[in-house]
């Protein structure tokens, strides 16, 4: 997992590619974005740009791409003032991958999107075609050349957006959270692609495991200032420094393999048994499930089959992790459990079929935090957002207020009652969405990708909050820490079919998952182990020195 050598002279002997001096930026509402940032970036460097949400990382890279005008200070690219550089020329050399792929895919097909940049660079059509096909093949999307962006899954969109930037053959590649919401296979794919990239690389990412070995230099931003500028490995081996920067990932380092054991997981009652509905290994649990889908299939209007003849049940009190590659049908399954998607098959709540007219009864017992939680918030204040549900079901004002306070306290947002949800950080919005679901006192809480886009501090807090919640939970995530810490049962979806339904401890040791579903958790396990070893080594070294 070492960074590739690119046959360049040592960075210190070259003039800097970017030279930034006392760069200060303030947003129109007075919020400081950057405060006196000074740093040099050399050709071929591989930089991890770290910091909590709102620390100024995105603001800094927008300056490097010329999207933000320099308000105060100096920002030079190859010795020339970035402002004097014609915008289009600079941007053709400095590629920027944005956080939300929907912002980056604006043409009618994937092909057109990827061709947009090279065509703007004035490349001839044969070269454009070669670049488009080559980069799409590199991100494994060559089979979707002519699909519209709005019909892609999130992971596919993310890879298409990366291909669109790579097709421009940029000298500098800046990526803003490239792995958010991606499954392990796609994460590995992007990692391998970036490992082979020979130019200057700057990555904003909360997942330190992803960055380890890929980047060699760490820039830690705190409140718009460069707090630390050091080799990434040094930072990762210094827990005290990590804690000080809000980058403490040690809560993840109980290791997924050991986590199942430390979480008190007993051998599962679920065993590999009779086959039902294709490859689905059904749980032989007895008793009535709380909610159940029987022989259920769902197909989207564009003809894509999302779920194929699946049978899935959730029992009261259990926490189940639902995993699968991007586009496997996890969110569709969750929305089908909520009755929002009506496919062929049966939806049963406590043994009784749920008809269209009985959905409101279902929704009083099942709450959901959607994947794009920010898009489920629509009220002008946190209080109104959380009170919305209880008010709709006709509770008294006193009860509404009680439930609002209770839910906000559960997610550690007490005191935020009058805050505007739109202006809150991503982590706070996620917790608010959970509070909004909890205020209805659901028996089942479905969480779709709860950790996507969260910084480490928010992740740790969310993990704590979720482990404290007593109700039945269905957790859709790729995060091994959350899976191993919170769930006892894991269900694996692959191309719309349930291919595994077993204990989480079995899942954590399932080495065949990669060959069956392309879910490569082995790479994550390696990262965990490498990190644990590094931390152990470091603590031994510190202890030896103290002795």
């Amino acid at each position, binding site marked *: 997992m070492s960074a590739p050598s690119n046959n360049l002279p040592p960075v210190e002997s070259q003039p800097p590619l970017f030279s930034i001096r006392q760069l200060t930026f303030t947003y129109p509402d007075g919020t400081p974005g950057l405060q006196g940032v000074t740093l040099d970036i050399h050709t071929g460097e591989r930089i991890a740009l770290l910091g909590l949400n709102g620390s100024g990382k995105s603001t800094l890279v927008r300056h490097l791409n010329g999207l933000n005008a320099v308000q105060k200070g100096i920002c030079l690219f190859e010795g020339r003032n970035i402002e004097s550089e014609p915008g289009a020329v600079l941007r053709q050399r400095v590629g920027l991958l944005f956080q939300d792929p929907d912002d980056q895919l604006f043409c009618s*097909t994937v092909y057109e999107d990827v061709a947009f940049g090279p065509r*703007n660079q004035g490349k001839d059509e044969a070269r454009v075609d070669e670049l488009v096909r080559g980069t799409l093949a590199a991100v494994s999307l060559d089979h979707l050349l002519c699909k519209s962006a709005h019909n892609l899954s999130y992971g596919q969109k993310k890879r298409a957006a990366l291909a669109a930037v790579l097709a421009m053959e940029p000298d500098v590649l800046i990526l803003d959270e490239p792995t958010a919401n991606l499954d392990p296979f796609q994460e590995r794919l992007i990692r391998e692609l970036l490992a082979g990239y020979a130019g200057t690389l700057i990555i904003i990412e909360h997942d330190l495991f992803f960055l380890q070995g890929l980047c060699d230099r760490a820039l830690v931003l705190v409140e718009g200032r460069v707090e630390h500028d050091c080799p990434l490995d040094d930072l990762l081996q210094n827990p005290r420094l990590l804690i000080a920067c809000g980058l403490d990932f040690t809560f993840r380092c109980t290791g997924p393999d050991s986590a199942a054991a430390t979480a008190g997981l007993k051998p599962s009652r679920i065993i590999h048994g009779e086959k039902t509905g294709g490859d689905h290994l059904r749980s032989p649990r007895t008793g009535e499930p709380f909610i159940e889908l029987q022989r259920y299939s769902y197909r989207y209007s564009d003809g894509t089959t999302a779920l194929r003849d699946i049978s899935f049940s959730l029992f009261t009190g259990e926490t189940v992790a639902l995993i699968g590659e991007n586009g496997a049908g996890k969110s569709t399954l969750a929305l089908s459990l909520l009755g929002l998607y009506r496919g062929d098959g049966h939806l049963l709540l406590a043994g009784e079929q749920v008809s269209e007219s009985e959905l409101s009864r279902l929704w009083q017992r099942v709450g959901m935090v959607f994947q794009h939680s920010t898009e489920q918030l629509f009220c002008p204040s946190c209080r109104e957002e959380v009170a919305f549900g209880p008010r709709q079901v006709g509770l008294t004002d006193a009860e509404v207020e009680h439930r609002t306070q209770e839910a906000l306290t559960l997610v550690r947002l007490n005191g935020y009652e009058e805050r505007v949800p739109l202006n809150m950080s991503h982590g706070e919005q996620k917790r608010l969405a959970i509070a909004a679901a909890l205020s*209805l006192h659901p028996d089942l809480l479905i969480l779709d990708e709860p950790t996507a886009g969260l910084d480490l501090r928010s992740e740790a807090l969310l993990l704590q909050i979720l482990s404290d919640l007593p109700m039945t939970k269905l957790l859709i995530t790729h995060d091994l820490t959350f899976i191993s810490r919170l769930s006892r049962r894991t269900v694996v979806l692959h191309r719309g079919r349930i291919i595994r339904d077993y204990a989480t401890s079995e899942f954590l040791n399932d080495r065949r998952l990669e060959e069956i579903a392309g879910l490569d958790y082995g790479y994550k396990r390696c990262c965990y182990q490498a990190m644990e070893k590094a931390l152990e080594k470091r603590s031994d070294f510190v202890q030896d020195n103290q002795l």
Partner: protein
Amino acid sequence: MKNQVSKVIVLDTLESSALAIVTVAVVSLLVVLFRRRKKHRYSDNREPDWSIPVLDAQSDGSSFFHSWHPSVKVGTLCASCFLIVSLNTLTWSLAAVGICILAVLLARTPWERLSRRLVAISGFLAMLVVLLPFTSAVRPEDTVFLIFGMENWPFHQRGLIVALTIVCKAVSVVLLMEPMLATAPFSRTLQGFSGLGLPRKLLSMIALCHRYLFVFREEILYMQRAMRVRGFVPRTNLATMRIMGNCFGMLFIRSFERTERIYEAMLSRGYRGSFPAGPEPPKTVYDFIKAAICLVIALLLLSVDRIMPSPLL
């Protein structure tokens, strides 16, 4: 009224009932057929192949319309649409429908999408067919039907014919939309409009609208879902209006923010005011021959419509 018209046909109870039953039966049959078709739309269980253009999946791309230069095609078919809507008689409007069906057959585009388009306009057309016969002005020589029980609402034959003529013209134009818009990739069709002199900025806006309508639809869906699962039932009261106001306000803010982000993403990939055009095929003499054929047919229709008034009107 009887003094103004030459022919009044009175339908007795039996005839009126038969007319009502036939009308209801035809409408029900259409509804049942449409629902059944919708249900079995994807029963073949095939995944679309996205590695080739959707157009090529529908046909081999060699149809009369697929191989036509976009600018010439769009220009010709637009002109044909104008000529068709200038028709005055039902007979020749029906002929136009026939010719347009032939054009769709030549284009080999799927009937599924076409039927959805027709269903989309069917509400307006149905309203015309129902209202015009009862509301059109009565002229001398008109034939009027008096239906049993509706004597105060005379049914004018001329109104019905006018309504049917409008329906035929509308259906013809909708049918022509398929060969015009669905036989080239969307971007190339827009390029075709650009070749006709439409401002590039307007076309860029259309292209972005086409893409982001889906994104905004998704955002509205997310919000609606979030509201529904939290017990929201829209009613006609102030509380509902306030909630919907919040919802649309939030959508507006998010849309505004998204447009800024999209523009920045475009800038960061070298956007300089216009969408870069892909390769445009050269215009050949065949493109103009095709244009001439189409325009001659449309002009012929218009001429016979004016010269040979049909027995219907």
